[in-house]
């Protein structure tokens, strides 16, 4: 079922829950991986994904289809995750610790990370990026989204996104050159 049909079904009296469950079924996994690569921890990703869907559920009746359903969901998930990261950074600052370092330690100790050393270094490099840049890099690199779609999600111009991705790419490459 495509997004248009899902939204029509959602607007039918008494079919909201069923339609929304179909949306969760269609986009849940994709959004989970998007969040997971930003926060590294499975527990945090799970909480954030559920919050994303709860917010989407309460906002969907007001969704005017000015953007596509999938970019709209991505937008909610990204905003929710970036707010979470900002709070975590602030918390780390007050406890005089480095948030990026915390994330790296979390990744090293994560029982749900099965990558090899190269992948570990690569994901550590991604976790070192500023959080907005990390989101842009992940959407482009892993999700292979077009700059136009990323622009719809982030509300940033295509030009700025291209520059951001390029900077992120350079930083990751430098980090990998130094560590491996």
């Amino acid at each position, binding site marked *: 079922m495509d997004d248009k049909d899902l939204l029509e079904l959602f607007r039918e009296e008494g079919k909201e829950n069923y339609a929304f469950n179909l949306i969760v079924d269609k986009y849940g996994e994709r959004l989970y991986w998007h969040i997971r690569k930003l926060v590294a921890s499975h527990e945090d990703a799970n909480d954030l994904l559920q919050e994303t869907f709860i917010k989407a559920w309460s906002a969907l009746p007001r969704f005017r289809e000015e953007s596509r359903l999938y970019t709209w969901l991505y937008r909610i998930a990204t905003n929710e995750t970036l707010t979470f990261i900002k709070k975590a950074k602030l918390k780390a600052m007050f406890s005089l610790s480095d948030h990026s370092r915390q994330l790296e330690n979390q990744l090293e100790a994560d029982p*749900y990370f099965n990558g090899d050393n190269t992948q570990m270094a690569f994901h550590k490099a991604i976790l070192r990026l500023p959080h907005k840049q990390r989101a842009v890099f992940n959407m482009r690199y892993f999700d292979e989204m077009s700059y136009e779609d990323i622009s719809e999600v982030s509300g940033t111009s295509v030009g700025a996104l291209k520059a951001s991705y390029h900077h992120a790419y350079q930083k990751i490459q430098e980090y990998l050159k130094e560590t491996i």
Partner: protein
Amino acid sequence: MKKKINIEDPHLKENPFTVPQGYFNEMKNNVAERISVTTGAQKTGIITILRPQAALISAFALIFFIGYAAFTIFTPRVSESEITVLSADNQFIEEGFLKTTFIDFFDIEAETQTEEIHTLPSDEVISYISENIDIITLTSLE
């Protein structure tokens, strides 16, 4: 020798993260459960939300009325004529107070007048008394 890594290597695009077994089904159930709870809450709506506040307001109102009733019942009533007398007395006291305070303590003119009276020459006083008071009155003063 350092190994050169190309970011475009497809191996790096692979997902190294995993999830606990059956996680996605569990997540869907959790979301569905949370949504049905939210729907239930939305249906009961404003009444459910405002119920505790309404109860608190009613409790305060009840306490206030009980207190007010007790005060009105147990306070002795004062008749209208008593009230008029009281208010007249109050007015008298108030006027007296105003006079004593403002005239006695702050009226500088009155103070200077008194001083002038005290400084009258004694022979003038004697002549005034002899002209205006008869002998009988004078003897009664002795």
